[in-house]
């Protein structure tokens, strides 16, 4: 298990040295500045637009990192064959995979936190006084991070058995599907057969529901979030990640390295 930690820290170091991340961070900060200006050309949304724009930027950038680097975690190593030397060492394959996952999730935590702090500073600049409900923004950022961890797990799983391009498409696809999974439950009953209804309902519970983590509207309008929601989402993300990672380990353990 400790070896997984070694792999994790190395992955983190790789991400930090990958200069692309700094550009993204800079972009995020520019977004914050832009949102302050955006409030000037409209009525009454100075405070809300900062939150919506800022959270959108954090989510989008985080997704790009999670999908592209997440897929590359294993694909890149397999392509470039850096994997060979490592796996011949006394490292179990699952330790390697978990380490990679942890490393990227850690990287994302740092990035998302940095952007979140930037957002909070922008809010303080614009709002005369902060109220309780503004803490929701921090919760929203935390939820975004949870969601990103799940995306990384999925990206990892797909990259273990398909090409990098397909893995990216699948991951992005599942993410988008996951945003609308809630709607499946509200599908009109009359139109479909009973079997179909049951099937779609079933599916809507099993597929990852990314809408759970979306509290942008609440954050924008400074509504407080109950603590139970935080606990539930954390649990959901943890369990689902564990499931996906287990599947990835299963696939990866039996994979012949080209």
């Amino acid at each position: 298990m400790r070896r997984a930690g070694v792999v994790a820290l190395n992955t983190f170091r790789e991400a930090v040295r990958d200069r692309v991340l700094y550009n993204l961070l800079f972009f995020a900060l520019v977004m914050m500045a832009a949102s302050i200006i955006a409030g000037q050309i409209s009525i009454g949304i100075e405070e809300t637009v900062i939150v919506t724009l800022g959270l959108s930027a954090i989510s989008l950038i985080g997704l790009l990192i999670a999908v592209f680097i997440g897929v590359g975690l294993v694909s890149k190593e397999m392509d470039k064959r850096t994997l060979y030397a490592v796996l011949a060492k006394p490292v179990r394959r699952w330790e390697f995979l978990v380490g990679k996952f942890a490393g990227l999730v850690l990287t994302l935590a740092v990035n998302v936190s940095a952007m979140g702090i930037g957002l909070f500073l922008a809010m303080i600049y614009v709002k005369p006084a902060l109220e309780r409900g503004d803490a929701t923004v921090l919760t929203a950022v935390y939820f975004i991070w949870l969601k990103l961890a799940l995306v990384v797990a999925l990206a990892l799983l797909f990259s273990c058995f398909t090409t990098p391009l397909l893995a990216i498409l699948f991951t992005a696809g599942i993410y988008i599907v996951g945003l609308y999974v809630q709607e499946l439950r509200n599908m009109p009953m009359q139109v479909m057969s009973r079997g179909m209804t049951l099937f779609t309902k079933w599916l809507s519970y099993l597929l990852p529901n990314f809408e759970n983590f979306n509290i942008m509207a609440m954050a924008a309008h400074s509504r407080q979030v109950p603590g139970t929601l935080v606990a539930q989402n954390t649990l959901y993300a943890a369990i689902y990640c564990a499931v996906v990672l287990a599947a990835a380990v299963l696939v990866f353990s039996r994979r012949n390295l080209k």
Partner: protein
Amino acid sequence: MTATAIETENLTKEYPHGFLSLKKRKSLEGLNMQVETGEIFGFIGPNGAGKTTAIKLLMRLIFPTAGTARILGKPISDIDMHRDVGYLPEQPYFYDYLTAAELLDYFARIHDLPAAERKPRVEKMLKRVGLETAGKIQLRKYSKGMLQRAGMAQAILHDPKVVVLDEPMSGLDPVGRREVRDIILELKREGKTVMFSTHILSDAEMLCDRVGVIVGGKLRGVGAPEELVGVKPQAMEILFELAGQSSPTLLAKATRTGDRFRLQVPEAELYGTIDQLRAAGAKILSVAQVRATLEEFFMHLVEADRAQAAAVEVSGK
């Protein structure tokens, strides 16, 4: 300590092949091989013969379709056994954002080396492979030769009992190759077992106690290089200088470069020929054995294999 460092039994690897992956291609078939403790074993064969496949199987990077293998008496599925095994992959590539020192430190941690020991060990390794000045430079800036050396360093970093090297000399200049050869000999002196694959036969002849020849996925012969090609020297070669006139019959079979001639004669006729040459006024420069080389043995095997493969195709099997 077991006498056999590495042994395989009927190790086989098939790959799905062709349309709908229905056909199977055997890249390694029924490998039965033993590498003795403390010897340098060479794995030779043409490209695609299955050398790398065999090594990857041993390193648990790919999984056998059939057969088993053991290293140091333990099955290859035993992860802990890898503590005592060092591996250098073919055309190694490492995390290019790390420096050599960091890479070795990373691997040292994976090997559970205690913190106090890591730094001195890393430095010692870098020195051993001649990278002590380049230790702080990122690997992305390394030349091929330097990468190979870094690879060597990570293979022996943890003082393994068995070292497996896949094409360790590839891409190296003569200086680099000399260094690798020296390291391999050093390792043997330290009592380690070294197995390496190569398609450069002269290296194998020079270094190996024994070689295994793989052609077309099958092991064709195992033994000391001299044993394989036949012990007795076939002929003797005389190098001499002769200016001007001389007996044409004698020189007919010789190859000439300017005033120098090379002449091969059966061993029995050696002294007779020398007398003849002396009588003709030639200056004898050297007399040496002409040994059948590993190369000839090798080419012979490859031809035979190709013929067999063609026959198989023709018969439509």
